[in-house]
């Protein structure tokens, strides 16, 4: 009896100890003791990359409610039954007043909301509902271009000005050509595109981390360990990434990003990187359902200062699907043929 009581007490102590350990370590770990970042994740959100004027970084509860209810109402309106006896849409197109949507559709209306999965909630980082993903500079907007950055922008515009935007497929954006992700999904930094498929699968070993971006099926391979960087002249898509652990945070440093890759797309912070680009990302799993993703972009040949941002990656309750973008890219054909048709109509007008 005494013995069994002693065993019971010992068991209780053990259970309490185990409980205490569990309470101290709320995140899953890999067999080598590192935080387990693996799984399917999403950074879809309605919080924009760049902060609008006149708004603080942290939104009030009322602002969050207004934004999220507004989004729900917007979707609900699109689900309303249409008049079966309706007429064709108006000549000249229809504009909604939503700058992103109108710029993308050119007034043609895009398509119904059921095709869109833009992110229906405000980004919450460390418990704070945010008005922008950029947190530094303090105003949530990109720093001014450096003198060299302005010179390069002018040179680029002069070069591009020699060609028509629709002259050939090579002049079209990388996403339209199915080469790179929409917006800045693949990154770095990895940011939402505000339309759909803002999803990632992370696979982790002791010496490599692979991050697959659903759109457009881009895979980043990050080597973990002592940095042995590529020579300066080799600049692959998504750059040359090396990782190391600082405590429980995976730190990824990336240089050598391809000069044609647009970073921080879907915002007016978007830019093409110079040979001096360095992006540092910090991934910290804070609980079962969240990875805190922080990034710092430094490119003195473009900007006059760093850009720092914070984005929550939430666990995706579902699968990623192959985004085989070349499977049926009729859109590229339509865009180029459309340009030729417009040129022919213009010639006739003259």
């Amino acid at each position, binding site marked *: 009896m005494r013995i069994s009581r002693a065993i019971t007490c010992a068991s209780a102590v053990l259970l309490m100890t185990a409980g205490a350990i569990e309470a101290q370590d709320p995140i899953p770990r890999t067999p080598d003791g590192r935080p387990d970042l693996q799984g399917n994740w999403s950074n879809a959100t*309605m*919080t*924009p*990359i*760049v902060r*609008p004027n006149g708004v603080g970084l942290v939104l009030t509860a009322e602002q969050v409610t*207004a*934004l999220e209810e*507004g*989004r*729900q*109402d917007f979707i*609900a309106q699109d*689900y309303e*039954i*249409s008049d*079966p006896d*309706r007429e*064709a*849409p108006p*000549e000249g*197109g229809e504009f909604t007043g*939503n*700058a*992103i949507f109108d*710029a*993308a*559709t*050119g007034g043609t*209306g*895009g*398509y*119904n*909301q*059921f*095709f*869109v*999965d833009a992110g229906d909630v405000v980004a919450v980082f460390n418990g704070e509902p945010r008005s922008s993903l950029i947190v530094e500079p303090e105003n949530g907007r990109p720093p001014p271009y450096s003198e060299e950055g302005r010179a390069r922008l002018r040179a680029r515009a002069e070069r591009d000005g020699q060609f028509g935007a*629709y002259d050939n497929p090579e002049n079209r*954006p990388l*996403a*339209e050509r*199915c080469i790179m992700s*929409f917006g800045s999904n693949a990154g770095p930094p990895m940011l939402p595109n*505000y*339309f759909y498929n803002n999803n990632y699968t992370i696979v982790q070993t002791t010496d490599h981390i692979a991050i697959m971006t659903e759109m*457009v099926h881009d895979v980043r391979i990050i080597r973990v360990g002592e940095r042995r960087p590529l020579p300066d002249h080799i600049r692959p898509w998504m750059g040359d990434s090396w990782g190391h652990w600082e405590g429980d945070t995976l730190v990824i440093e990336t240089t050598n990003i391809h000069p044609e890759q647009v970073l921080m797309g879907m*915002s*007016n912070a978007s830019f093409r990187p110079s040979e001096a680009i360095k992006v540092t990302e910090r991934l910290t799993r804070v609980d079962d359902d969240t990875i805190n993703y922080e990034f710092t972009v430094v490119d003195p040949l473009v900007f006059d200062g760093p850009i720092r941002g914070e984005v929550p990656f939430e666990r995706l309750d579902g*699968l*990623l*699907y192959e985004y085989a973008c070349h499977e*049926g890219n*009729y*859109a590229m054909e*339509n*865009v180029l*043929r*459309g340009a030729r*048709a417009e040129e022919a109509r213009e010639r006739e007008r003259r």
Partner: protein
Amino acid sequence: MKKRSTIAVGTALALLVAAGPLVAHHAFGAEFDRDAPIQLRGQIVKLEWVNPHTWIHVEIEKDDGTSEVWMVEGGTPNVLLRRGLRRDCLTPGTEIIVDGYQAKDHSLTRANGKDITFTDGTKIFLGSSGTGAPYEREMMAARRAQGRC
């Protein structure tokens, strides 16, 4: 309801406006002619469940009695799959109405699907991402009662 949502959307859009300008993945503005609106009423003959965009093939009857097949562009199938929708939700023979704009090359019978509905005006698909919002639950229940996806 309408008034409140207009104000709320206005607030939401004020935030989102700051995200522009953008380069769209496949710029509809470059593909389709906003001066060439169309409305197609006909039967689905084929569904291309492909990336980067789905294409619904619709056969319509022209005024002269002949028929013509149009291709209608929708969004990525990945979103639809994630919502549990299947390609057999749009079986050949289903009658639909499509509002949109024709491709800029008018020799192509292609258009975007600005609004795609059944002939009674209900949308062919529903679902936002399982938000559980009341409108979504009610509409999905009604759809299932009709035997629709």
